[in-house]
């Protein structure tokens, strides 16, 4: 077991949900695959999906919904089975 960080590729506003009336992409405890979207970053009127990057379980979400993030900021941690 090891813990991996999900980092933001971009500066912008981080969103937990794909749309305001939709459920969040993930919550603590969600099981995710590497290519699964775990959030959105909005910048320059564009929305970029953040992928988990690892297969595993979300152990923590470290930024607030609608919070400003920078490139390389750790957004979440994932415990991988490997």
């Amino acid at each position, binding site marked *: 077991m090891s813990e991996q960080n999900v980092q933001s590729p*971009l*500066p*912008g*506003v981080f969103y937990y949900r794909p749309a305001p009336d939709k459920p969040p992409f993930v919550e603590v405890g969600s099981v995710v695959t590497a290519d699964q979207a775990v959030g959105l970053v909005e*910048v*320059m009127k*564009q929305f970029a999906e953040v992928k988990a990057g690892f297969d595993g379980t979300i152990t923590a979400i470290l930024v607030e919904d609608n919070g400003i993030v920078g*490139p390389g900021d750790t957004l979440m941690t994932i415990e991988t089975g490997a």
Partner: protein
Amino acid sequence: MTVEIVEPGLASNVQDQGRPGYYNVGIPPGGAADLNAAATANQLVGNTVDAAVIESPYMGPSLRFKTATVVAVTGGTVPVFLNKEPRPQWESFTVAVDDELTFGFLQDGARIYVAVAGGFDVPLVLGSRSTYATGGFGGFKGRMLQKGDILPLGDGEGTPGRKLPESLRPVYSRYVELRVVLGLYDYRLTEAGRTCLLESEWSMTPVADRMGFRYSGPPLEWIERVQPFGAGSDPSNIVDAGYPVGSIQVPGGVEPIILHRDAVSGGGYAMVGTVISADMNKVAQCSPGTRTKFISVTMAEALEARTADRLYRTDVTAAVTS
């Protein structure tokens, strides 16, 4: 002689030094948001300053070279890799056929510039290779770059090993002071409104691109008036007027917008000031959350700053090409 876009990053596009002269018919000057970084990247690889480069906001692209050539990366601070091996910024280096250029996470600044010997040989439109995506012309097919695009290169052997001395490299900060000349419509603000504009610390929002950069902060107070015929109903409205590049408009009195190089040429919002041309490159290297103050300067000071910027370019040219 081509370069393949393996991954485009976010809104990567082709820019040169712009197409001034058509703003009167609604076509903005365009050009690299950070003209100096683009010019320097060109000089490092042995191009003239006005060759076309790739501009990548916030996130580098992945490029595969189909020809051996020379490359330089300038602008926002970012780890650069050639076939996963680190390469320097502000310094030209050789690439071989099938080499892949990739980037890490942006560390400072906002826009990365990639110059290749010979420049990107996209067609000239109205004298420039700059992409004007809103108008759908210029650059590569009039749009942002996409995965799988194959960009042609012009002729040029390139000059590897050219380096910009540390002392001439820009320093990016999360706090910037932008010099502005007040007007033409700052008289529409109350004294408190004008003080608020100049005393407040503004925060750059994520709503910022080649057209304009939006800032959050306190609302500005306007002088009440009966709006003239032709002006909108909000106190921040005026009868339509031309917008200088760099002008600051404040729709509804909240969230000032600095118009940048792809700006619309006119409209009905009062411009309370204009960022001086010498500071427009600095705006281009700001990212969301950058704390910003507007510093009022006179026209004479603005012109002095422009001269200083030109002298800086002379120094860069001497240092890089000597």
